[in-house]
């Protein structure tokens, strides 16, 4: 199995800073997006991703290419860091957790987009964490079922079941958007 990251991981493990930067450039945006959707908070997502990279730097020297695809391992680590943070939370306050989205062209449009995004984020955040993880990986990150199941450490059948329940719950929560 060809893994495009193997060389970079080996070099980063040997202390090559440029390889570490290249790995970061390749994976950081998607990892941030995943953590942000899982945690609903930009600050927490940044901390979770930093923890995931710390684990990567610690293990890079001992990386065994034959075992799993590097990217799958890295996203599983990120997901586990998100789970850790979700479990440490007292009672989730979704309104506090939702951050302000990116600025949009006009003020009205910005408000509209922000409202819609907040609504979608809230619906997503209200899903049980495993369903949310499945939905985010397959529908937001556009990963295949096999890869998503590997990241979550579950069977493809279990993933499909989580996806079906997650979709159903989202559809129920955002029913008014379906008519648009």
């Amino acid at each position, binding site marked *: 199995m060809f893994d495009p990251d193997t060389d970079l991981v080996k070099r980063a493990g040997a*202390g090559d800073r440029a390889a570490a930067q290249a790995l970061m450039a390749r994976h950081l945006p998607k990892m941030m997006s995943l953590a942000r959707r899982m945690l609903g908070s930009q600050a927490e997502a940044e901390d979770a991703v930093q923890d995931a990279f710390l684990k990567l730097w610690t293990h890079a020297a001992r990386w065994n290419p034959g075992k799993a695809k590097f990217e799958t391992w890295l996203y599983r680590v990120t997901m586990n860091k998100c789970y850790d943070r979700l479990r440490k939370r007292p009672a989730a306050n979704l309104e506090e957790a939702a951050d302000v989205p990116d600025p949009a062209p006009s003020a009205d449009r910005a408000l509209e987009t922000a409202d819609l995004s907040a609504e979608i984020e809230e619906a997503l955040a209200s899903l049980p964490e495993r369903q949310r993880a499945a*939905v*985010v990986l397959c529908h937001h990150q556009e990963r295949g079922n096999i890869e998503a199941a590997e990241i979550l450490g579950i069977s493809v059948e279990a993933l499909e079941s989580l996806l079906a329940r997650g979709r159903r719950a989202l*559809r129920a929560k955002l029913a008014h958007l379906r008519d648009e």
Partner: protein
Amino acid sequence: MERNDADGHWVDRTLRRLPTTPVPQVLEARILKDFDRLSELRNTGLRGWLSRATAAVWPGAPVWRPAMAFGAALAIGLALGVLMPLQDEASASEQSASIMLDTPPTFEIGENS
């Protein structure tokens, strides 16, 4: 991935409406700082000495490889060391036997009378 159902496409479209997650430069700096700190730790202490020694003996190899080579050499050496003295002992006992044969027999007078 096969996702022919209407729900799947709807969820795809809906989640696409979410804004892109920004990646602040401060975060990149924090992550690289962790990398630098770990690299520095690796280069100091016993671990650092080990990795430098490994690089000198077997460049590019992980630590376990020269350690395995050293372990194998040690095991072979020990095995030879244990077996070799047995041959010396055998030749020593042969020599003492030959010396004993060379010496004239001694009889106690009146032993069998």
